[in-house]
């Protein structure tokens, strides 16, 4: 499935999650609306009605008991009378109104209407009888009136007792109806809440799984190409210009992959071109330097013959000229040889394990005479075994040690320390001397070919040694530089890759 750019993919992912969330909200709302309606009916209608009917029954019984107390307990004072008045004038009328209002919302054939009408009718009669009792037993004197007592006894014992019972029965019936509704609503509410909980759980699980799937898909679709790019970039950095990233689709990472491939292709082309030009150059240098040797050798031979066969002692000028020609020829020969050596560096191209300690010992043997003559002290640390080109590395160390001896201070014996340490990706070597040192401004220049800081009369040489060194170090993927304090000494640092 073509999803498009990462932006679109992320939007689609989040959009899907939001959609699932919205469905969750909508379904929850629908389900909870039903529960809310059931709960509201319970809260605002059924429970208050049951409570009201409870209170109605209590007050109905209380009125009866107060009446009995008034009639038979001869309790005529206001404590009882006032409460009876409160019930008959305020409380019962209020409950009657409530019961009446209940019937207004019921369908016409609902049996609760009949029950409610009965309750109201019976309560009206009950109120009338209680008021009659109160009027008949206004004072204590009235208890001595046998006729009155007979009347109130009849009203309390028979009429009111019967009415109270009937009212209570009807209230109980009505309450039973509402209790049934209460139970039904409770069950419905419980079921609705259970369903709601199930819906929330189910959609939650779906949402989580979908979220995980989408997240995993998006992460993979982003991370996989990035990993491929990283691997390719690493290969590219190791010189593998043939590496190509597989691209699919039209998203940002695919475009990046395309760009990477283009870059690698371009690099490969450039590298091939450079290699080709380098080879041409090397060939040119080799041919030039090799071919130059021949006329130089001829010139040197004929100059020697000229000196031997045509003695010119008497002609001082001629002798001097011949000597100059001879010296110039030799110097040019050395320069051409140096150039030839420079072009040959790395030609073997055979990597091998090189024990630097052994290598230095060999160099030390080669330079034993010079070392002895100059009383050079060579301190060699614990050097590593590295992968490299033996001949070239030997030349590197030899050049650096030779230079350290050659450019020694006049007032002290040379002291050369060679050490190595590991840094990320490289071995870092240092060759430290106590020689004449190098001015800051020459720290770069000294590594260029045929660059000399001194004339031949001071220090002999072709000025190609450190150029050789740089070429060797760069062959090993490293860098070379110098830190120096004039008159105090110099330290040459170079790094050799430890990943070859």
């Amino acid at each position, binding site marked *: 499935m073509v999803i498009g750019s990462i932006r679109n993919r992320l939007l689609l992912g989040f959009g899907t999650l939001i959609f699932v969330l919205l469905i969750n909200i909508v379904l929850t709302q629908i389900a909870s609306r039903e529960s809310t309606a059931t709960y509201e009916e319970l809260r605002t209608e059924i429970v208050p009605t049951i409570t009201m009917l409870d209170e109605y029954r209590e007050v109905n019984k209380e009125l009866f008991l107060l009446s009995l107390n008034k009639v038979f307990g001869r309790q*005529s*004072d*206001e*404590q009882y*009378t*006032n409460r009876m*008045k*409160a019930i008959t*004038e*305020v*409380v019962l*009328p*209020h409950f009657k*109104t409530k019961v009446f209002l209940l019937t207004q919302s019921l369908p016409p054939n609902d049996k609760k209407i009949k029950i409610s009408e009965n309750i109201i009718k019976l309560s009206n009669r009950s109120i009338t009888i209680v008021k009659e009792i109160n009027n008949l037993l*206004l*004072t*204590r*004197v009235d208890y001595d009136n046998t006729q009155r007592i007979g009347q109130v006894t009849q009203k309390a014992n028979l009429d009111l007792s019967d009415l109270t019972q009937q009212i209570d029965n009807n209230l109980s019936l009505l309450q039973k109806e509402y209790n049934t509704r209460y139970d039904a609503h409770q069950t419905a509410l419980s079921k609705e809440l259970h369903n709601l909980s199930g819906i929330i759980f189910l959609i939650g699980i779906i949402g989580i799984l979908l979220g995980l799937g989408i997240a995993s898909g998006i992460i993979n679709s982003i991370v996989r190409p990035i990993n491929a790019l990283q691997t390719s970039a690493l290969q590219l950095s190791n010189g593998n210009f043939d590496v190509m990233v597989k691209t699919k689709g039209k998203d940002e990472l695919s475009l990046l992959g395309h760009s990477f491939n283009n870059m690698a292709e371009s690099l490969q082309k450039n590298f091939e071109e450079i290699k080709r030009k380098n080879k041409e150059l090397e060939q040119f240098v080799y041919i030039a330097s090799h071919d130059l040797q021949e006329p130089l050798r001829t010139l040197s031979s004929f100059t020697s013959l000229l000196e031997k066969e045509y003695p010119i002692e008497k002609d001082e000028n001629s002798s001097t000229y011949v000597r100059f020609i001879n010296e110039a020829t030799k110097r040019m020969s050395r320069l051409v040889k140096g150039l030839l050596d420079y072009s040959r560096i790395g030609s073997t191209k055979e990597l091998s394990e090189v024990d630097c300690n052994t290598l230095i010992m060999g160099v030390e043997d080669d330079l034993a005479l010079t070392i002895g003559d100059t009383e050079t002290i060579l301190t060699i640390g614990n050097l590593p075994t590295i992968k490299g080109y033996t001949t070239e590395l030997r030349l590197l160390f030899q050049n650096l040690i030779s230079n350290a001896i050659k450019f020694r201070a006049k007032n002290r014996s040379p002291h050369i320390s060679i050490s190595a340490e590991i840094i990320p990706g490289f071995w870092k070597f240092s060759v430290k001397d106590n020689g004449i040192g190098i001015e800051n401004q020459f720290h770069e220049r000294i590594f260029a070919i045929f660059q000399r800081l001194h004339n031949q009369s001071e220090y002999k040489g072709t000025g190609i040694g450190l150029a050789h060194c740089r070429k060797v170090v760069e062959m090993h993927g490293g860098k070379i530089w110098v830190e120096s304090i004039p008159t105090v000494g110099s330290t040459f640092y170079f790094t050799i890759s430890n990943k070859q």
Partner: protein
Amino acid sequence: MEHIGLKMFVILTLLVSLIGCKESKSEEINIGYIGPLSKRATDLGIGPSNALQLAVDQYNASRSDDALKVNLFIEDDQWEKDNALPAYHKLRKEHDIDIVYISNTDGTIALQDAILKDQVILINPLNSDALLSSLNQNTFKIAKATEEANGLIAIRIIELGLKKVLVLTYPNDYMSRAATSCKSLLDNVGVENKVTLVGKDETDFKDELQTAKDAGVDAYVFFGYKEFGFAMKQARDLGIEAPFFGSTVLLDPEFFSNSEGTIIGTECSFFTPADGNYVLADEFMDSYKNKFGSSPVSVWPAMQAYDAMNMVLQEIANITETKNRNEAFDDWLRNRLFDISYYQGVCGNISIAEDGASRGIYFSLYQYASEGKLSKVRR
């Protein structure tokens, strides 16, 4: 063009001002109270005015942002019915009141035409009797029933087996109605009785008392105010030892001082927190004491006034939900008050009947125990 623009601006400004004025008027309701704050029956005026103010303050402090603010303005009628109408007009003119509370029964009658004309709702928070219940539709009584409360005295006299009763009566509607109800009950059971109307500011009752003593009267009923303190003292001075009975107003401090203590032992109908919803009543009494520094001299007028005000404030709090935009204020409030069937107030559970009178406030029999103190009569 410039003139037309200017005219339009002026008209719009006027319209905005008019709308603004109307809005600001409808955001507040002004209520008046007319009661005895000086001269006579101050126990029926000061306590209620404070209770009304307390209820209004509590309402304003807790009202929601969209609920109307209520302002209360109080006028002293010195318990004279002739002062009622001027006080009412003053409240209308100065504060444009929509509701008036008035304690005096005669004053209530005096305001009838004016409240109907002004579409003002009148509430009597002190008394409710048969006459008041026959007044116009804008009149409500959230109070005890006069006849019922004072009928307790007659019932007590009958219960005690007293045979000859003198009922001294102050000449106003309330006391006359109290005397009539008492007399009616006594007549029903054949107890001999005589109702004597006294002069308004009369303080010398020796002649009436001497005559009664001579006639063998064994129960003296004083349906009136502080002047009857003198009568009680004079009766005892004449050697009358028969029991005294009074109305609902014995706690006026001047009553006690005028009687020089002879009021002690007098039985009367009264109402205390114990007779009402004592939880709410205690709370009210605490709030009252906190706000005014002491309890009202007589608690029942204050309790009734507090309930009467809260019943109205309860409706005002919901006015935005219950009143139609085109419904007159008095029509709306009248209908709302008639719908009250069960208000749980400090006096108990109160309803308003079709005659505009409340039900649910019932007085009991008390006895004057010591200065400013009553105790319930136990039998």
